[in-house]
């Protein structure tokens, strides 16, 4: 919601002749306002109605500013780009028999529009907007020509990483590190996993709580959390390599878990929603059962996605169900085709479902 609100607001501000610094200041202020409202426990709808829809507040915000006339030069460049692209494609095809991969030139159309529109405003998310095209092309290249679909898909992580990095202005350094840490962990996990160390390589995910704990203000609590986490990881490795027993090695995490509960960093809450509680417990039990019986943990975890999907269906508005659920479906299809059938070359197409669903729903 926050991103959408700020994007809408920015689009509205861009319609007016206003200093970029001033626009940035307004966006920063609204970013803080939204955070404050959400921290007060307001729902997304309440926040929007509390702050006013961007198209309703824009007149007040831009008082004294003139509406900008869109540069006709920009329009011309955007309008002409499909023709140039088509001509280039035909030349590549007829002239050099490069129909494939010559079709790639068609991505120049959206890229041109993005560069022209966002570049003129020095939009800090320009690279974020370009990243799906660039990383998608790189992914296809290393997949088609080097058959590295897996772990080549890691290049797609550039998209969320850039999005977070380009939003660094609104974050503290530690928050930025915390937000980036899951991606760093995932990349490291896949890299060392491909060397044959998926286990105990998964321990690298502990980097996430280790970095996250740095947000703790109380030094004593911070130090204790870090010590318990590190001791848990080291203890696990020691027991695992000494006794070669995974389940026994997990005992090493009991002190960290206990301290997490004591300090409040880990909270187990069961609300009054009986149905939700049943779904959560049943899903976890099913995940453990399937995992233990089949030992296919790399797919079994997908069962856990039932929990967010169920909560979306239960607690979000009907209109947004399909769009909100589509990433989970895509991820499930991507993983099943990739892990179970080795079809990494095609499984990525599952992610095309996300924009397709959004476009169909919003059209």
């Amino acid at each position, binding site marked *: 919601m926050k991103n959408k609100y700020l994007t809408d607001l920015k689009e509205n501000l861009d319609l007016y002749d206003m200093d970029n610094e001033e626009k940035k200041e*307004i966006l*920063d*202020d*609204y*970013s*803080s*306002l939204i*955070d*404050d*409202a959400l921290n*007060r426990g307001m729902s997304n709808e309440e926040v929007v109605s*509390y*702050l*006013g*829809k961007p198209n*309703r*507040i824009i007149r*007040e*915000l831009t*008082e004294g500013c003139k509406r900008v006339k869109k540069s006709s030069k920009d329009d011309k460049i955007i309008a002409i780009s499909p023709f140039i692209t088509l001509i280039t494609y035909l030349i590549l095809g007829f002239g050099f028999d490069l129909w494939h991969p010559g079709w790639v030139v068609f991505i120049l159309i959206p890229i041109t529009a993005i560069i022209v529109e966002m570049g003129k405003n020095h939009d800090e998310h320009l690279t974020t907007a370009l990243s799906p095209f660039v990383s998608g092309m790189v992914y296809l290249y290393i997949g088609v020509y080097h058959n590295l679909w897996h772990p080549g898909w890691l290049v797609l992580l550039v998209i969320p990483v850039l999005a977070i990095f380009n939003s660094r*202005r*609104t*974050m*503290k350094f530690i*928050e930025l590190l915390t937000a980036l840490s899951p991606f760093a962990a995932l990349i490291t996990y896949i890299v060392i996993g491909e060397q044959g160390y998926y286990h105990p390589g998964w321990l690298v995910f502990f980097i996430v709580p280790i970095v996250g704990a740095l*947000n703790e*203000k109380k030094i004593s609590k911070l130090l204790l959390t870090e010590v318990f986490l590190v001791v848990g990881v080291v203890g696990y490795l020691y027991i695992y390599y000494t006794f070669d027993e995974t389940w026994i090695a997990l005992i090493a995490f009991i002190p960290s878990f206990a301290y997490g509960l004591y300090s409040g960093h880990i909270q187990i809450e069961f609300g009054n929603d009986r149905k939700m509680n049943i779904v959560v417990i049943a899903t976890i039990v099913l995940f453990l059962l399937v995992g233990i019986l089949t030992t296919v943990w790399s797919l079994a975890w997908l069962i856990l996605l039932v929990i967010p999907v169920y909560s979306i269906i239960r607690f979000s508005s009907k209109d947004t169900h399909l769009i909100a659920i589509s990433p989970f479906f895509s991820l499930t299809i991507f993983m099943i085709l990739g892990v179970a059938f080795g079809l990494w070359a095609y499984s990525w197409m599952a992610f095309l479902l996300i924009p397709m669903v959004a476009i169909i729903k919003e059209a």
Partner: protein
Amino acid sequence: MNSQFKRGIIELCALKVISEKDMYSFEVIDQISRDIEVNENTIYPLLRRLTKQGLFETYTETVAIGAPRKYFKITVEGKKRLESLDKEWRSFLRSVLNILDGENNEK
């Protein structure tokens, strides 16, 4: 209520609450909307406008979680404006109450 009329009241209220304590935007909105119904929010744009007019100045302060927070502080100019608006409104309200209570008619 007429929007221009309401705008004047909100301006006075914003000057008043910030004169008592430096506040960040959400605090101002929260405080004012407790007593006055604000449909589509106009308080933040108003704070910006009054800042541009030199009635407020801003400074940022770091907070435990999240980006640094921007606080609004009333200026000498702002205090003068508050005083003059306060007088205007009180006199205006007295006149309206006089009419509503029928005091002028009794004389």
